């Protein structure tokens, strides 16, 4: 990994209102190169809104939000694949929208499909895939743009536990290999700790960050780390902070 730790995403005193509803208030948040930051919080606390602001889908009501890179990947809650396109053509979509020439597009798609372990499924249609494979296709689609900052909006929330753990491992592998910075939204404290270099806890509405925890475990991570007392202790601390913030 490079020693470059420049800031890619910078939120300063960000607030967000939707009509009369105050969704976010006083959010300070930075994500630097080499970091994988997870945000946990109760439902409706504005976690997803953070990503929508970071990606430019929403404009802040107050404060500033800036990104240092144009290469931003966004992985939605659903795989959002186009039902009429094969895996390969779905993975090529973003490069296509960015006017990448055909040959280059095909090469990038093949590489990304290989990275997520879907080689051999290029011609399958989304309806022929399992939920986990659809999510992998969605990941591969974003990987074709070689993002510097990757935004994840609870991407594995709808998957079963086994698939979810396997995809967590693969995401960690990608993080180490591809060297992107990540901002990951999730409901699961254990998932957040396992994936991240830093975990932020949000309070209920209006959402704001009430606590931050550095995760001391080295990358690449051993899956068995999840069964160590240190891991359990950190999950316990974060869960406690989550309950405090919810009060």
């Amino acid at each position, binding site marked *: 990994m490079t020693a470059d730790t420049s800031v890619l995403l910078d939120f300063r005193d960000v607030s967000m209102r939707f009509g009369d509803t105050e969704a976010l208030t006083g959010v300070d948040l930075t994500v630097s190169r080499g970091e994988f930051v997870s945000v946990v919080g109760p439902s409706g606390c504005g976690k997803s809104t953070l990503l929508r602001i970071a*990606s*430019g*889908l929403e404009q802040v009501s107050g404060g500033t939000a800036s990104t240092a890179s144009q290469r*931003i990947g*966004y992985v*939605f*809650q*659903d795989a*959002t694949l*186009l*039902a*009429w396109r094969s895996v390969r053509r779905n993975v090529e*979509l*973003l490069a*296509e*929208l*960015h006017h990448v020439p055909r040959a280059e597009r095909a090469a990038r798609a093949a590489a990304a499909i290989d990275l997520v372990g879907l080689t051999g499924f290029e011609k399958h*249609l*989304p*309806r022929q895939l399992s939920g986990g494979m659809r999510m992998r296709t969605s990941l591969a689609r974003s990987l074709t743009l070689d993002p510097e900052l990757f935004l994840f909006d609870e991407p594995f929330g709808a998957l079963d536990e086994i698939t979810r753990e396997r995809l967590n491992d693969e995401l960690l592998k990608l993080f180490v290999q591809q060297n992107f910075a990540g901002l990951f939204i999730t409901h699961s404290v254990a998932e957040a700790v396992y994936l991240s270099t830093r975990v932020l806890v949000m309070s209920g509405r209006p959402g704001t960050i009430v606590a931050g925890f550095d995760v001391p475990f080295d990358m690449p991570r051993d899956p068995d780390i999840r069964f160590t007392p240190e891991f359990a202790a950190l999950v316990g601390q974060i869960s406690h902070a989550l309950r405090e913030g919810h009060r």
Partner: protein
Amino acid sequence: MKRIPWWQPTIVFGLVVALWYAIAAWYDKSKELAFVVPYPHLVLQEALTDGQFRQQLLENLLQTVVITATGLLIATVIGMSWAVLMSQARWLEHSLYPYAVILQTIPILAIVPLIGTIFGYEFTSRVIVTVMISLFPMVSNTLFGLASVDRAQWELFRLNGAGRFTTLLKLQLPAALPAIFVGLRTAAGLAVIGAIVGDQFFQRGTPGLGVLIQVSNSRLNGPGTFAAIITASLLGVVVFLLFGLLGRLVTGKWADQS
């Protein structure tokens, strides 16, 4: 679409033919008006063995097919363009949708004299009636399909700098295809009705089956009337099945229903 076992409709068909024989026999024996409801075999005989009538039937059928196809093509182009236009902005949808509804509620009979006066009593007017009858399902189904795009997919396109046209071409239209084919199937069935109705009002030139039905009926040619009616009905069924099949061929592989 669920597959229906063939033998169930066949039994119903047998029952209908039997009932038809019973009614025909009643008209024949009790009322002595055999031409009002002719025996089924006489109808078949008229359609298949009377060379002159068969010739007439085929010519008229061809005309009806031409009118139906022309009307359907125009309705498809206008209907889809209308829907695409409405899908581009909320204010456009609000401004234009009421007229799609009004179009459907206009009694065709009420404006027939006007169509005749302006466009004459030939092919053009027959096609106009066909278009008017079959347009609405194209507009409403296309619009529904275009609007059915998932919000996150919209945002995916927006995040990656896709403009209106690209989004329409690569996201909205493909997503709308299943709905468009449902519209097309409905519109095709209606277009056959429109072509027959158009014939009844605008009889000059080379009209289709609608005129044959009227002429046969006025000549008290019961078998001829029935043969023309059944041919028109079969055309409707064939067209409906054809577009159902086409829809399944195009979208069946990936769409959930078609």
